[in-house]
């Protein structure tokens, strides 16, 4: 591909080399909602290689034709681009189905045979990316199947990759065990761990914002920054995923992965290049510098009945699939310290929850006040510290709060916002995170995939909490659905003479 002189990079995108993508759980929710629609959109954008095929694997006994019909229906519902006959006909030829249970040897024998046939017909050159879109309990079974059948084995000029979805274990030992399982068949360089937050344009833009501009990095440290607040709030409840949530909770569902990954982008040192390993090294170092979270620095909450988005909302314990006496947290507020030269004594406050007033993901960097204010108290009474907000979703953008003189004959200062919105500057609809990540994995670019060291570090950070909650018990603070969380979370910041932003 690199030798093709017709591929100029000005208008044409970089297309991966030939490969087949095998999706275990090919009829599952993620495959139908995200993965196949993402591949369809890549096809429309001509970003799939000429030698490409997709094979779904699952228990159902179905023909290729039946599988294609079902995927068309899912794409019609979930694709960001409408499905049309002309385009779908070309795309559906690329879709295939292999039925079988994941623990049966013959499933892998059949898969190997189909991949061989499809590879010849479609020119996939023997390259295969296995996407494990299945519950974590199935990972070891599938990895063993791929390992034992020889399907995971790479040969010169032929890659084999495994893409796995979070959660990567449920604590440090289980994560390490899972990692060991995966490594029985795949080397680390073959493994791509998906955290879809890292596929979001605005998360990736944190690096550009920090390291492509001269004005921010000089003040991006403890000398100028008072503290950082990272908020991931949702207005929805568990939405029928009560059973899953009972096992995960906010700590495992959001904090351990999404939030700590976002934190690593904010806290990392400049990488020497934008190379995948250089970026992942720096993110890993940032996480390695984080102190473990102590129960005294964390508030956990659970929503009770209230109103959300104008409608009555039931409490968590009344949700389907949730135990009536459940102590699982739907909210976490935490104070996290990073022990390194850049961030010593600068707290990072993390807050995530369900049934909060609105859906927001943002990073707010609050700067220190000026050392001396040469204005009267009355003039500066309404002045608040400068805050730089990186909005990740919705209304992706960046805003800066600063003081300005209120127009009048006297000096009075008020805080105003300078706002940059992505969609007013770059109006093209951004690609879905899964399109970006699938393409990156096909290209073998691991920049936006957490490495196992980062996963281990994030489990290390949250481990004391899990232990303490298990050992000491004690339930979460209740907060009303539609509120910004329990009062104890406000007290957590009040202890430091700070307060939460209202996003």
């Amino acid at each position, binding site marked *: 591909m690199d030798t093709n002189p017709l591929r100029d990079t000005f208008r044409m995108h970089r297309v991966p080399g030939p490969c087949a993508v095998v999706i275990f759980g090919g009829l599952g929710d993620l495959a139908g909602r995200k993965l196949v629609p993402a591949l369809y959109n890549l096809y429309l954008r001509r970003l799939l290689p000429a030698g490409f095929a997709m094979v779904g694997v699952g228990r159902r006994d179905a023909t290729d034709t039946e599988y294609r019909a079902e995927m068309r229906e899912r794409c019609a519902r979930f694709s960001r681009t409408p499905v049309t006959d002309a385009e779908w006909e*070309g795309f559906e030829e690329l879709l295939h189905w292999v039925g079988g249970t994941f623990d049966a040897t013959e499933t892998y024998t059949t898969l190997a045979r189909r991949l061989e046939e499809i590879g010849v017909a479609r020119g996939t050159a023997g390259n295969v990316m296995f996407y494990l879109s299945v519950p974590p309990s199935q990972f070891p079974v599938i990895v063993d199947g791929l390992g034992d059948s020889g399907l995971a084995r790479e040969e010169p000029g032929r890659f084999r990759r495994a893409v796995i979805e979070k959660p990567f274990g449920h604590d440090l030992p289980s994560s390490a065990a899972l990692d060991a399982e995966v490594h029985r068949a795949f080397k680390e360089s073959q493994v791509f761990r998906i955290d879809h937050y890292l596929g979001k344009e605005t998360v990736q833009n944190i690096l550009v914002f920090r390291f492509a501009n001269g004005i921010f990095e000089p003040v991006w440290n403890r000398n100028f920054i008072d503290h950082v607040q990272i908020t991931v709030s949702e207005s929805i409840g568990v939405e029928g995923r009560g059973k899953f949530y009972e096992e995960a909770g906010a700590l495992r569902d959001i904090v351990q992965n999404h939030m700590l990954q976002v934190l690593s982008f904010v806290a990392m040192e400049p990488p020497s290049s934008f190379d995948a390993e250089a970026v992942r090294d720096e993110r890993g170092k940032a996480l390695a510098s984080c102190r473990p979270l102590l129960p005294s620095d964390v508030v956990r909450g659970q929503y009770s009945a209230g109103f959300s988005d104008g409608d009555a909302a039931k409490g968590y314990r009344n949700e389907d699939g949730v135990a009536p006496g459940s102590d699982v947290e739907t909210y976490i507020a935490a104070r996290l310290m990073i022990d390194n030269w850049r961030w010593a004594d600068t707290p990072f406050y993390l807050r995530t929850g369900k049934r909060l007033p609105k859906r927001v993901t943002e990073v707010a960097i609050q700067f220190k006040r000026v050392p001396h204010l040469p204005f009267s108290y009355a003039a500066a009474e309404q002045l608040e510290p400068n805050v730089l907000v990186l909005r990740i979703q919705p209304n992706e953008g960046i805003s800066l709060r600063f003081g300005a003189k209120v127009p009048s004959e006297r000096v009075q200062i008020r805080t105003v916002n300078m706002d940059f*919105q992505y969609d007013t500057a770059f109006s093209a609809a951004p690609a879905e995170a899964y399109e970006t990540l699938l393409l990156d994995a096909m290209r073998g670019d691991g920049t936006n995939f957490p490495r196992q060291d980062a996963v281990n570090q994030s489990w290390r950070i949250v481990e004391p909490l899990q232990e303490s909650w298990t050992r000491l018990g004690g339930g979460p603070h209740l907060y009303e659905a539609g509120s910004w969380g329990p009062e104890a979370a406000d007290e957590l910041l009040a202890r430091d003479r700070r307060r939460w932003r209202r996003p």
Partner: protein
Amino acid sequence: MTTPAAIERELAELRGKTAGDHAGTRTHIVDLVAYADDPAIATELGEVVAMMRHHRPSRALIASGAPGDVTAEPAVFCSPMQEGGAIVCCEIVRLTGPPAGDALTSMIASLLLPDLPVFLLWLSPPPLDRPTFHNLAALATRLVTDSTRFPTTLDVLGSVARQEHLVVTDLAWTKITGWREVVATIFDDAEHAALLPSLEHVAIQHVAGSDAQARLLVGWLATASRATPTTSIEAVTHEDMRPGSLVRVELTCGGHRFIVDRPSEGMATIDVPGRPIRRAALRVPPFGTLVGEELEFLAPDRAFEAALERLPPGAR
């Protein structure tokens, strides 16, 4: 007699009325200046910009020649860029004024939003000897033409770029990006890439009406392959496709024939010897989308400039 200050006031009022609570939010991408002698084309351009969903210019100044004083019709169009996204406004000012002289161009210069790149959309062949064109080109970062509508444009673009020190581009080139991507896939594997320097013949069929896209594709293939292929360009009738659209590209290379065929809008077939026929998505975007896409690019497009140097002769 209108003034820039009066137009700015009217635009601010319109923004307030149109966008409601979101007054004042406008795109910060580019200024677009369009000129057409034909008022019908100017009207069409205004409608196209107003309908743009993505890549909207911040302000579009669409001018056409008419006797008398300069007149202006400001308008503001606001809508969310994405579902659930912020409402964003685009300002369009229709200007008319004397086709010769400085009145129109001075008004345009006053109305440009500061510190934004300026795209000059001049669809007809750029008249190098005309002061209006020269003055507008002096304001512009990039010139966008459309040789599908005016095929002779292709033959003057090189000299325009040199004389006006302008980055030039052509919507006919934007239209064939998809075609270039599909043709390029044939040579993604090393075996076929090795055949490219021996490109012997390029045969292209296009819908009658303009051979500009076909000539650009040949120019691109010749420069990228570093070969000197013979060429045949044939106009055909195809009622479902727009004039000038490419229908079939056949490459003879090292004794092999590679064929890309577009039997219908949205889909192409790719025939590579010894391989099953493949299909690829190939839909040429509508005019407004093409203009919008072009607003993304600021740097010179070296592949386009090189293709201009190797164009086969056009149909007479």
